[in-house]
């Protein structure tokens, strides 16, 4: 009991001294302080910066799958639900004023909202209210950057042309159906999620193009690889038609 009381008292004293001490001792208020040495050192830093030899920035992007349905493609809805969210890091090695090499290490969440209709081969037995395929990818990308003008410590205007290799860490198939509650234990909706799908590939590769003005970037991705494998468990053992390959979006670097 005594030990507990001592502990509480010590805590209270520490807490109060933390609050009151600055008011008593540090009664001055520092409004502005500058270490000019650090500022001048920064002036001379040549190695790291938007237009220096090395640069690293965060990247956050969002893109939409273009519902361009060719003969061999599984139709996706043309709303915002077929999209990709990207975030990660971007690294740059400047070669000269106009050219640089870059590398991205990013996570991408990729979603395809499947149009429900007669051609839905993913689950032909049933027309769902909603059906969706989602992929969680870890990607490594490389690109060549072409800058258009001499500039200061600034990213400027540029085009990136490159490729990305994606490892699909996880994939999910979702369906959502409205049902009669009287036949489903009072449930109005049934959501089914399937994972570890044996009809999707683990590796994807993309071509990437970006046009950036400083930190705002318009991006385009084209998937060269197929998403689906042939599986005896779906579509009578025949490989599914491919999902749309092209997406456009925006990115910001920070």
């Amino acid at each position, binding site marked *: 009991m005594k030990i507990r009381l001592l502990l509480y008292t010590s805590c209270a004293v520490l807490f109060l001294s933390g609050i009151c001490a600055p008011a008593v*001792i*540090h*009664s*001055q*208020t*520092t*409004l*502005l*302080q*500058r*270490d*000019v*040495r650090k*500022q*001048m050192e*920064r*002036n*001379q830093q*040549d190695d790291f*910066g938007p*237009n220096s030899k090395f640069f690293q920035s965060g990247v956050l992007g969002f893109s939409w799958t273009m519902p361009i349905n*060719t003969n061999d493609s599984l139709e996706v809805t043309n709303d915002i639900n077929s999209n990709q969210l990207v975030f990660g890091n971007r690294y740059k090695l400047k070669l000269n004023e106009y050219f640089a090499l870059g590398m991205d290490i990013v996570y991408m969440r990729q979603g395809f909202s499947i149009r429900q209709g007669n051609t839905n081969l993913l689950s032909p037995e049933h027309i769902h209210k909603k059906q969706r395929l989602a992929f969680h990818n870890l990607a490594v990308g490389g690109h060549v950057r*072409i800058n*258009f*003008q*001499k*500039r*200061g*410590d*600034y990213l*400027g*205007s540029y*085009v990136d*042309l490159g490729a990305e290799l994606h490892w699909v860490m996880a994939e999910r198939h979702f369906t959502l159906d409205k049902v009669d509650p009287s036949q489903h234990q009072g449930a109005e909706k049934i959501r089914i999620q399937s994972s570890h799908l044996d009809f999707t590939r683990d590796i994807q590769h993309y*071509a990437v*193009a970006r*046009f950036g003005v400083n930190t705002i970037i318009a991006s*385009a991705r*084209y998937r*060269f690889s197929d998403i689906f494998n042939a599986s005896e468990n779906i579509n009578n053992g025949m490989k599914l038609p491919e999902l749309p*390959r*092209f997406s456009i979006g925006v990115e910001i670097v920070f």
Partner: protein
Amino acid sequence: MHILFCLALLLFSTVSLIGQSNYWVFLKDKDGVTFDPLTYFDAKAIERRIREGLPLHDITDYPVREDYVQQVAQYCDSIRSTSRWFNAIAVKATPAQIAQINTMPFVVRTQPMQHTLQLAEAKRPPQHSERKLSAMEYATLYGQTERMGFSLLRERGYTGKGVRIAVFDAGFPLVDKHPSFEHIVRNNRIVDTYNFVNNSKNVFRSNNHGTHVLSCIAGMLDSIPMGCATDAEFLLAKTENAYVEIRTEEDHWIQSLEWADKMGADIINSSLGYTVQFYFRKDMDGQTSIITRAANTAFSKGILVVNSAGNEGAGRWEIIGAPADSDSVLTIGGINPSHGYHTRFSSYGPSASYKKKPNLVAFSQTVTALGHNQGTSFSSPLVAGFAACIRQMHPEWTVRQLFDELEKSGELYPYFDYAHGHGVPQASYFIYGKSLSDTAMFKMHWNAQDKTVELHHLGDSTTWKSFAIDKENWHENRCYHLPLEYCYWQLIDEAHRIVYYELVEPGEKLIARITNKDCDNCTLRIYYKQYFYERPWMELLNELSAQPTPSDTISPLSH
């Protein structure tokens, strides 16, 4: 599909890459060119040259050789302009054309042209008839000139009369119609205008940034001056195209400088700067940027160039831009009227070559003819107007004298830091002279435990002046803080460079706590209540630590 995509990529890249750029083509000589200064220059430009002791026949004023211009024109898409001072031609050309131009025997070199980024935002103008100032706005309006002691100048008739000020900006809409400028327009004191963007005389359209700026030089609102130079003459130049993003080509700015020189400008106000988009921080050394060099040339011809420090203080860039990095430019930072010290967005000095920047400061939040606005773009014209009054008072001073005396009039002088320069210029300096206090209002003691020097009040502690304002009697109130109540201290290294500085609001007992910041060989400087103190740190430390009773009162040390 794959091929289509690749083609689209290729097209995308190619279209982006191909295109013309603007370049400077620097020429070798001006051999054979004739020049008559008496017909070329305005009478005031000649007066200025005589005052400065400059020759009327200066090769930098001679025009560019016409035959060179014609030859260059054959190899580029178009000629944009020429520069007498730089003996250069501004051209629009492709890289291939520039490669050809570089082979011409009379071409010294070529250089890609930069763009200018203007530093302040302008807001949409309200209708003047609807304008009702709040008490706070009245306080700001009064303070923006009175903080410099303008009434002392005005009472004595120093309102910039006879001084010619050139203002470079993005446009001056409503200046020809607005009642705030009626006293200028009625008396034909807009001597000339030029729109360097459109090659016309009309500057009274487009972006209203220049109208805000001109207000801070010479505008009147309800008979209250918004700037100090209400009786000055003006040259208005539109140098910026500000519709989408506020950018212009630097040749407009240089053309404007040469035009202002020709037209007899005594003072130029320019509220723009180059920063991160075109330069690295190390380039802000007072000689790299071409507009910095142009500003240096203008100074050498007797023109006082007043430029805003920039609004990068809170951003990644942080420091002044070009041409504010020039040591010939009077660089003006901003203070916040409500607390009287550095406003957070005002760019910091020094230049990359450790030159003192900014030189002075003024209000960065101002009331203008079209509303109110903030940015160092509006600090600069306040000082430009003030400088015009001093020029009127001392027409015999060279531009260097004027520059130096303006610095000395700063309320903190001889104290200086890279946020406040020498402080706000004070008219009282020119009327009564500088009055530094002989008595320190603090005592010092060494705190051995914290290893700090503490400054304690001597006598009454600080009393703040009220910020409240009575709108009916606004002119009776002190509506802003003077810097006297703050304590400024800094450490100077052996090369006389400031390595660290602080601004402190004193508490009831303690004014400031000072540490040596790993600089034992530094000299400590303190400015507090008009008392300037300077002492080598080690010397001070030895003396203070030798005191037998450190907590007792210690007499202030002499400076």
